[in-house]
């Protein structure tokens, strides 16, 4: 008995967490996927009826807005956060004397809740009292900056706040990458008289492909899950102009009482994330022989 126990102790120790993960992650995903094929409204129903919830999603103008916004927000957020992060990292890598304090400043937004970030930017972008008034006071009397309340432009305010919060993090990733580039190659290139910009463009940046991938994964994952930022900044409005799949799902689940729509939209989100994460995890966890 003690022998058996001794042999299986590692598995027994792991078991509670594994059971929890299997029930609360995989079991729950299964439940949501199943319910997305039922007619559930206020209460869950368990008779399968086919993909009617997905047909309803496809026909919903609000869902279309949510998907379009995800595309706009996702692309711009990833693009700007990556470019700014990379530029900051390269500039900080030039033997800057005040690197420590600067890095601390660039990265502190990552310590904040998206609700705090949203609250701050909602105030800064306030039409009337915010940035707009700063420019009007400077003499640009017709300057208007009302993106926050403009249905066509409000989604871009989410990009502004999101990039502000996350670009420092991308900088940290790239800076770590720059520090691990082989110094010998760079010194050799410099001896050959190749200019610094050329060295960056043709040697250093291409060698950081894995970091581009990592930051793409992290940022796209953040974009798909974005919920708090939208709620705090625009509340999904004006109307539902800044809805994202995450806020659509929440609205269906907790204010509209439409479990079927909530489950099907959550399942679509799950599929998007899976399409991005699974190949990444596979390549990261695959045993390497180098």
């Amino acid at each position, binding site marked *: 008995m003690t022998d058996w126990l001794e042999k299986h102790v590692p598995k027994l120790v792991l078991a509670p967490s594994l059971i929890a993960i299997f029930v*609360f992650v995989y079991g729950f995903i299964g439940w949501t996927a199943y319910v997305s094929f039922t007619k559930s409204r206020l209460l869950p129903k368990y008779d399968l009826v086919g993909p009617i919830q997905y047909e309803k999603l496809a026909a919903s103008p609000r869902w279309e807005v949510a998907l379009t916004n995800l595309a706009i927000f996702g692309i711009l957020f990833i693009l700007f956060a990556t470019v700014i992060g990379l530029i900051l990292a390269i500039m900080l890598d030039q033997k800057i004397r005040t690197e420590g304090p600067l890095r601390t400043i660039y990265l502190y937004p990552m310590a904040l809740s998206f609700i705090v970030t949203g609250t701050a930017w909602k105030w800064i972008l306030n039409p009337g009292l915010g940035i707009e008034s700063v420019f009007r006071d400077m003499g640009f009397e017709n300057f208007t900056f009302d993106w926050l309340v403009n249905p066509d432009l409000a989604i871009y305010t989410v990009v502004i706040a999101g990039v502000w919060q996350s670009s420092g993090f991308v900088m940290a990733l790239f800076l770590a990458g720059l520090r691990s580039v082989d110094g010998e190659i760079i010194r050799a290139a410099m001896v050959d008289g190749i200019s610094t910009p050329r060295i960056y463009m043709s040697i250093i940046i291409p060698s950081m492909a894995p970091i581009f991938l990592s930051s793409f994964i992290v940022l796209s994952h953040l974009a798909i899950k974005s919920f708090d930022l939208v709620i705090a900044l625009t509340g999904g409005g004006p109307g539902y102009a800044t809805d994202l799949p995450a806020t659509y799902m929440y609205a269906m689940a907790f204010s509209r009482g439409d479990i079927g729509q909530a489950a099907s939209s959550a399942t679509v989100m799950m599929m998007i994330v899976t399409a991005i994460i699974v190949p990444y995890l596979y390549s990261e966890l695959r045993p390497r022989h180098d």
Partner: protein
Amino acid sequence: MTDHSMNDHQLDERANRNRLMKRIALRLGLYTLLILFALYYLMPLFVMVVTSLKSLDEIRTGSLLSLPREIDFSSWGKAWSGACTGIQCNGLQPYFWNSVLLSIPAVAISTLLGAINGYVLAQWRFKGSNILFALMLFGCFIPFQVVLLPMAITLGALKIAGTIPGLMLVHIVYGIGFTTLFFRNFYVTIPQELVKAAKVDGAGFFRIFFSIFLPVSPPIIVVTVIWQFTQIWNDFLFGVSFSQAGTQPITVALNNIVNATTGVKEYNVDMAAAIIAALPTLLVYVVAGKYFIRGLTAGSVKG
């Protein structure tokens, strides 16, 4: 002959001086850009602080970026103990303590589980353990919307819906993946010969953990605790989905204060409330930034 070499020398010097000037100009441009970026990142924090110290009158008439004419701390007091989150007007205070009460046990339990799981997955591998690790890791990345509905039903069935222990359970379950990842990647760097030798000496699973692994773990414990604390303190989705009036965490209360529709819009109180909600995690970042960054990058770069 001498004249000629003099000229050469002068030319050299001029070229050198030009190169030096160019270098200085470049450095100057670089520092200017870096400082401009720093101002951009600091601007929202600056605006929050100065707005929280102004009176409403000054906010309406003054400029967003100007310093307060006279410093007025009253909005901080109101944010802490008088602002309305709907019908209740007790400020952030009760919700601040809710978040404290929620995060301390949740951080402790998920860190402990992560340590022991990571120890098994790094040093006591068995057939299939790598696949189990991958399955746990995948749990970190799911969009949590996909578990909200069944979780709400489960919490109701367990009779802990809308309670702090219920929310704690949610944070522990979905935190295990990351805490396990941190400890597993840390323990994997410890040579397996050490465990083998200890086994020969008759030490068992727990003895080896407590006498060899735990004593070297403080750095990764700090990283994990900071990560979990930041995640749980800053969480909004679980908080807003699984709490009710009275048990809400601070992020939900902050959002309710800012979006309260009754009465005059008090921007100074909103900003003071936002700073109060941000202070604990900011403090952790300032005190232990190195560990904070290590946690951030550990999840995305293979260590």
